[in-house]
């Protein structure tokens, strides 16, 4: 009989807000420890929280991106536990009455489109950080992160495989970036994942005992941790034993799950409504405004690209992975570049350039109008495609117009038959071996010879004319 895993995840997402949730400190990553702190976020006696309403809008964007129902009144609650990085001894979060409930995410899973229900989305503050390597024989505390804004997204246990969890998280991350709710910088801990997992006989309606995996901050880590835990649970059940309810911590370096001390998991958080803050009130107008400002979500955009622009699946998917790339592409199409050609340039040379310069489609200095001009020059035969790629690099470095660069550097495509013939003759004389192979029937070698002519011409030869001349000379001799 087969086993089936039942998995639900909780994702903590750091919102892209300029300030912390309840004070006016900047929410910045890094920086000297304890330089972005104030009486409120370090829990000094007498200090009180004041909600930064910018954050409610970011949380609404998140919840609405997943089609959640927004609650017009949600209530802050205190979640109590003692830990040195938690200044007040409680975390301000939402418990009984969260901001939003009942959404869903559809993603391309390993068995086709898969839907996961979102149970709830709520806002909460983050804790500080313990630094174990600053002071000998002691831990130091950095409270720069304390009080920064998170949303917690909780799914129903709708996932069935570790691989699907990873694909789901990818979709979730893409959506969060798309709607501008979070930078989703994994290295900076913008996304942290907990997962609940149990195993049962396939098709059984009963749930097995579940374990919780805490504190994983990479998607591959989540997949590996879940795979290990699912295998362990199956082995336990097959040996006739029972899976104990427990909390496990993923150790990314050792790639292993470790049981947390039972004391750590036996928390009674003693939730109760936060008396220092009034409930969060959201109006229908606010919801409408946020909804209207949401960009088209990646999956919708991807299928539109395929349908409207008749792009290949691959191009459409790569283009819509980032909203900036997709916007860049549509801007090119908007200035009358053929969609296929535009896609080829964004996915190909432009992406190459961005990777090399560590930039994205918003920050790369070559703007769509410049690329459009360059494509126009190729179409009119002024410049070869290979020369155009060098023009692109120069555009990024120096700016200016493509035609000026082409002229200044003599990158015009050579169409003069006399000049071309002399390059062709020169190549054929040098490459007698390849000429012999061509004449012996190995016609594929022609491409190599065209490349040689292009090289001799410094990339300026018109490849179509060069090819014709080569064939003519190879046949006529």
């Amino acid at each position, binding site marked *: 009989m087969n086993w089936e895993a039942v998995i639900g995840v909780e994702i903590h997402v750091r919102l892209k807000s300029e300030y912390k949730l309840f004070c006016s400190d900047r929410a910045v990553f890094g920086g000297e420890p304890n330089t972005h702190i104030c*009486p409120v976020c*370090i*829990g*000094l*006696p*007498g*200090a*009180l*929280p*004041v*909600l930064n309403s910018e954050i409610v809008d970011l949380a609404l964007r998140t919840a609405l991106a997943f089609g959640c129902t927004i609650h017009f009144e949600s209530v802050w609650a*205190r979640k*109590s536990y*003692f830990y*040195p990085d938690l*200044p*007040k*001894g*409680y975390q301000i979060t939402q418990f009984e009455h969260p901001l939003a409930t009942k959404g869903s995410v559809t993603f391309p899973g390993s068995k086709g489109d898969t839907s996961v229900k979102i149970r709830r989305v709520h806002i909460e503050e983050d804790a500080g950080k313990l630094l174990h390597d600053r002071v000998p024989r002691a831990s130091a*505390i950095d409270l720069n992160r304390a009080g920064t804004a998170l949303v917690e997204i909780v799914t129903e246990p709708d996932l069935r495989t570790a691989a699907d969890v990873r694909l789901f998280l990818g979709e979730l991350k893409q959506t969060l970036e798309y709607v501008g709710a979070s930078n989703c910088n994994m290295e900076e801990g913008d996304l942290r994942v907990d997962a609940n997992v149990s195993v049962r006989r396939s098709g059984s309606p009963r749930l097995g005992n579940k374990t919780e995996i805490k504190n994983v901050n990479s998607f591959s880590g989540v997949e590996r941790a879940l795979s290990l835990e699912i295998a362990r649970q199956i082995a336990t059940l097959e040996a006739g034993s029972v899976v104990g309810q427990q909390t496990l911590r993923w150790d990314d370096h050792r790639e292993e799950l470790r049981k947390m001390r039972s004391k750590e998991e036996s928390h*009674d958080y*003693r*939730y*109760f409504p936060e*008396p*220092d*803050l*009034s409930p969060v009130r959201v109006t229908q107008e606010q919801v409408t405004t946020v909804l209207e400002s949401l960009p088209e979500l990646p999956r919708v955009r991807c299928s539109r690209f395929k349908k409207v622009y008749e792009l290949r699946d691959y191009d459409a998917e790569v283009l819509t992975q980032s909203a900036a790339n997709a916007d860049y592409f549509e801007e090119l199409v908007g200035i009358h570049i053929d969609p296929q050609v535009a896609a080829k340039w964004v996915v190909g040379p432009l992406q190459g350039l961005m990777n090399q310069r560590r930039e994205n489609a918003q920050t790369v200095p070559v703007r769509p109008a410049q690329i459009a001009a360059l494509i126009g020059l190729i179409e009119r035969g002024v410049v070869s495609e290979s020369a155009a790629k060098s023009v692109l690099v120069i555009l990024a470095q120096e700016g200016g117009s493509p035609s000026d660069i082409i002229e200044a550097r003599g990158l015009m495509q050579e169409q003069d038959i006399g000049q071309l013939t002399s390059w062709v003759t020169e190549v054929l004389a040098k490459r007698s071996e390849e000429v012999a192979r061509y004449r012996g029937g190995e016609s594929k070698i022609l491409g190599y010879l065209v490349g040689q002519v292009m090289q001799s011409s410094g990339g300026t030869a018109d490849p179509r004319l060069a090819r014709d001349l080569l064939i003519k000379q190879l046949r006529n001799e």
Partner: protein
Amino acid sequence: MSLQDKVLSSSEVLNFGGSGFRSLDDIKELEGGREGLNAFLAVAEPEDLEACGQGPLEGVMVALKDNICTKRLPTTCGSRILKGYRSPYEATVVRRLRRAGALIAGKTNLDEFGMGSSTENSAFGPTLNPVDRSLVPGGSSGGSAAAVAAGYVRMALGSDTGGSVRQPAAFCGVVGIKPTYGRISRYGLIAFASSLDQIGTIGATVLEASLLLEVVSGHDTRDSTSAEKPVPRYRDAAVQGIEGMVVGIPTEYFPEQLDPPVRALLDDACERLVAAGAEVRPVSLPHTEFAIPCYYVLATAEASSNLARYDGVRFGARLPAEGLDRMYELTRGNFGAEVKRRIMLGTYVLSSGYYDAYYGTAQRTRASIAHDFTAAFNEVDVLFTPTSPTPAFPLGERVLDPVAMYLSDVFTVTANLAGIPGLSVPIGTVGGLPLGGQLLGPWWGESHIIAAAGALEASYREDT
């Protein structure tokens, strides 16, 4: 001088009442001598008196309960856990006082974190009642009430979570006002029970307590629970009279067990209200009997959470120990017995499995109590009750009997549960000890209760 005849300017307020003002040196000498009351935990040095604004309190010395954060003076909450703690920031009320020209004379003694009704729960020893040094001054703002009653200062700030301004004002024979929840910013008031805590004012006269209230009230962007309501001239309300005012007498606040002399003084006060032009009629507040248990569930629940930050990690006392848990245990051992008792109670009522039975029930009861008042204030303008069932009791009498101590708040906790304003004004003496009468008003009804208290005060003054 007739109060009704004129609106008093600040300098007249200062001169009013006859007893002159004392200097910091006077206060130090009085507190340091054998007759010292231990009302102050810290007295300012002359160099601590920062240059101040020109406002209605220009040059007036004001004492602050030691749970209000000051930068120049330590803020201890009467607790060993904050011994010597100096706040790096200042409470909003302190900034408002200085803007109005006031000078901060010092920090006054209190029951640890405001938890108590006698100021005997201070880690730094009890405050004595200036009327009779064998008696408690009430609490938890006992230091502030004693300092005003002894004439060290004419005005002081306290905080009132269940009666902590009104009850000590009554025990010491001065005036105490707890305004509507949200009237005064709590920013910089060290929390005991956030949904009940409210800073209150204590003055030698209704006028002084009202003027101080006027100065420190108003919206503060740093406190989300502070209200965006304009602040009336409360000092004018003190002299405006009560012609036509309807005063309700809630039967539940006049139980059989009240001592006859206490009852007689209350009856006399009612007659004076009528003589001043008010109409008096009985009303009922049927949920009153549930107020004390309701209060002790909610207040301890919030306290257990508010006091979690005193963990030895960032500020205040830390007792070194091997391991984090041991450090927490030893450090939090610094709390006094009453604070520990309330943290335990609060932790218990919030724990899973008990939450609904205790906290949930208490929340619903709180709503019923608030509703009682809403209904009553549809009929009457203010309510008149005793502030406390008895005058001041002897030091040590109730220390070992927490329930008896809790019951001294039986008439005051309801105002905190309902969020309404309350005021205690002297209404004579029983066996030489001052008794307080309490006036309660609807939300934002401070002016009404101040007017009623002003009329009573004027009536007693005419006797002498």
